[in-house]
């Protein structure tokens, strides 16, 4: 009789990277749905377009790197990256911008560093930051939510949106569908107090509801991920808490000049970032304690960049900055192991 010899354990949880990625995609559905309802077909088109590009780039580069193409394509990580980028950029972003973005994310952000699991930065955020720096005009022209269009439930028709993205569309029409985001409005309020800006801006007085709804949808997806144990609470909760704390402090101290905490939590990419971006396992800190530090720092950075920075939303830069710090955080946040008195800090020396 000859039997194989294998190492323990001999059973495995039915669990795979592809499974994890599928759950993430599933959790994104509510957010995508909300964006489609309030901002039109742009998001869906961008997701499909970015997804196809991502698969294409991934396949080509895997081939170039002489890796098993199908084996790795199957893990679904490329599509998740594409989806995250697609929901972060404005729905009317021209096709070539998405193309550049996906290329940067997959080829530069991921494979140049060695592929899945090796990238120090979140690929979608690398791409987003690059697009924001290179094409500031296109990147800040958001579709105005339908509620702004006065006459009821009107969003840009599907075909027109397609045209706007893939062919240079009629400018007049296009302009009537784009607008600033609430974060822009608050930052570019000139000498007005927050209160006055709020009253004068259509985005803030009418369109804010759409942003709240989208945020709520991301939150729902996040709760689903927590429930399915795809992510742990450490990074998202600490990020949201840190952001709330910072904004409450400043708001409490000077409400005329600072936005309230609820505004910070429910607009921009806060919820998307908390549950889908900073929880990207590859580029975040690894230990639970590390993730708390990681998340909290991002929360603080988001507040700083939004309030005093020059860009509409601080998320991408905050995430990238902390990605850079993640290995360092890891060194100082080793948990205390069973049977040891203290947690170890740093890696030097012999145990």
């Amino acid at each position: 009789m000859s039997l194989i010899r294998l190492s323990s354990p001999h059973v495995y949880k039915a669990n795979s990277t592809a499974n994890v990625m599928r759950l993430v995609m599933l959790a994104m559905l509510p957010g995508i749905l909300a964006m489609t309802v309030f901002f039109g077909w742009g998001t869906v088109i961008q997701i499909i377009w970015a997804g196809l590009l991502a698969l294409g780039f991934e396949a080509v580069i895997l081939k170039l790197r002489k890796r098993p193409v199908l084996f790795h394509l199957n893990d679904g990580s490329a599509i998740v990256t594409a989806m995250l980028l697609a929901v972060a950029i404005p729905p009317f972003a021209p096709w070539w911008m998405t193309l550049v973005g996906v290329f940067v994310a997959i080829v530069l952000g991921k494979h140049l560093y060695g592929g899945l699991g090796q990238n120090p930065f979140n690929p979608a955020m690398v791409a987003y930051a690059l697009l924001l720096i290179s094409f500031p005009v296109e990147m800040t022209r958001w579709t105005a939510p339908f509620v702004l269009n006065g006459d009821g439930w009107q969003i840009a028709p599907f075909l027109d949106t397609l045209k706007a993205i893939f062919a240079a569309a009629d400018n007049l029409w296009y302009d009537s569908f784009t607008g600033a985001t609430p974060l822009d409005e608050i930052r570019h309020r000139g000498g007005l107090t927050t209160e006055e800006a709020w009253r004068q801006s259509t985005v803030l007085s009418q369109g804010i509801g759409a942003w709240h709804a989208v945020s709520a949808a991301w939150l729902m997806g996040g709760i689903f991920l927590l429930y399915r144990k795809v992510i742990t609470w450490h990074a998202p909760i600490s990020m949201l808490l840190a952001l709330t704390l910072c904004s409450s402090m400043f708001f409490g101290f000077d409400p005329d000049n600072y936005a309230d905490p609820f505004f910070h939590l429910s607009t921009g990419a806060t919820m998307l970032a908390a549950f889908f971006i900073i929880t990207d396992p590859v580029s975040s800190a690894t230990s639970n304690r590390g993730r708390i530090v990681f998340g909290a720092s991002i929360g603080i950075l988001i507040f700083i960049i939004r309030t005093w920075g020059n860009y509409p939303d601080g998320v991408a830069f905050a995430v990238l900055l902390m990605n850079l710090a993640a290995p360092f955080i890891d060194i100082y946040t080793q948990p205390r192991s069973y049977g040891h008195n203290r947690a170890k800090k740093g890696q030097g020396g012999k145990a």
Partner: protein
Amino acid sequence: MGKVFAFHGGVHPPENKKQSTRTPIAQAPLPKMLYIPLQQHIGIAANPVVNVGDRVLKGQLIAEPVGRISASLHAPTSGIVRSIGPHPVPHASGLESDCITLETDGQDEWIEHQGLQDYTRLEPSVLIEHIRQCGIAGMGGAGFPTDVKLHLGDDHIVNTLIINAAECEPYITADDMLMRERAADILSGIRIISHLLRPSHIMIGIEDNKPQAIHALEAVLKGCELNIDIRVVPTKYPSGGERQLIQLLTGLEVPSGRIPADIGIVCQNVGTATAIHRAVHFGEPLISRIVTVTGDAVAKPQNFEALIGTPFADLLEAANLYEGRLFRLVMGGPMMGVTVAHDQIPVIKTTNCIIAASDEEMPQAPPEQPCIRCNMCEQVCPVTLLPQQLYWFSKGREFDKARNHNLFDCIECGACAYVCPSSIPLVQYYRFAKSEIRTEEAEQRKADHARQRFEARQARLEREQAEKEARRKARAEEAARAQQSRKNTEAEKAQSASDSAAPAASAAPDLKQLKTAAAVARTKLKKARDAFKNAEDKGLDGIDALRATLTDLEQKSEEAEQAFKAAEQAEAAAAAEKGVDLKQLKIDAAMARAAVTKLERALTKTEDEQARREMETELVEARKKSDALNQSLSEHSPA
């Protein structure tokens, strides 16, 4: 019921325990041959005391312990010793090891035996010795000789005795069935242990998936005079790990690198308690145990009371094995068990389960994917390690960092590998890293030894050198004295000259030889280094051998170098001694000459009669001195 604490992490693999608990424990059929490994416990292998061809009776001593941490072996039934030699044994390495092969005669004839009359009246040491004579070793885990753990009372104050009945691994039900059917025996065993250790508190830790066993224990505990608590813990793997169970029941952690007794706790398994009971009350040594035989490839999964030494094949047959379905044979549970390649491997004192798994039941792990740092492994590690970090360090051969991240606290429970979505065989990486570190340490120790030896040798050489130096000095002084009286005989002079020349002449070839030797050693070392680097780069086999050679060569080269340097220094010192003389002589001669010239010049310039006369005598003196110095100088300078 006291408080049950929690430990970090843990997993919930499918239990698969129902299959083997449907029927009571069955007596395994008597096999034709029993293979009894000499090493079934932690410590030194036992030493056989029977010869090939001897007939032995059931319960007869066949191998005796060697040293304190070792356990004796007894014949599980009557029969004839057929051979003593290598046979496949249950070990992760898959290597063979020495076994006593016993051909059974079917008579099952007992040797005369009897229990102890009233153990409570005996000296503890006598009782412990009796338990040692019965060859009892821990039956739950690693097989630590039980008597050693019972002796602990002397050096440690034991306040808590924990009876491990958690049995957290899936599939295994041996302890469960034992508790259901023989709870009274277990209690009797606990009494004996507690008599020896005198704990103030006894806890039985059991998972909540064994309601019938809990019931049975509760029934026998009614009216028991001992302070025993049954602590039901939630079903979660690995709650049966000794350290995890201690944490669950007491909230205490055993410090890293220490044993539970250091914090006043001793753990014993229920099977061990039963074995102690049988040893003390009936004088029966440990010759059988309960083994779960289960898995999809057997038709009748169940528990057997099997003799130690029974080949797995016999048990599988008794459980109706479907040959065709068998894909992997696991000894122990699915989380920590080891696969065996051979069905002739025998049951030993620690064999609690044999899983004959089909392909669908325990398929090959899917191919390893890149780690996505998802952190799931950290969430489940019962030791609160960072499995992912350990994986990166092990893979990257950064062993120092792995050790700094407490690699050696890893209990290899496999929880992390179980949940890893990328199917990374994490435990394999840890085992690899641990063994690499151990090898490195062994080598380090060897190198340290070598260095110490080298230093001792060096010290000896220096001492000898110093003695030689002293001797030579004495000789040189003698030579100087001889020089004083050199006018006496030319022969003496010649003698002294050859004396001082001799050592230098003899040192010269020596030095050259040493220099060549050092150079040769250096070249060899360089070659070996290159070969080693090459092998390392390409990951060739035999790296260890190469490394050993390298250390060896390094040491040799250093020795040669040192020897050469020492010789060189010695010569330089010798030369210097000679040189100082010569130099001094030259200086003196020159000074004398200068003095003469000075006086001559002064003489020509002086008019005073009195002063001239004084100067003239001075000049004669000075000339004499100068001449003498010049003479000696010409004698001493090399031709």
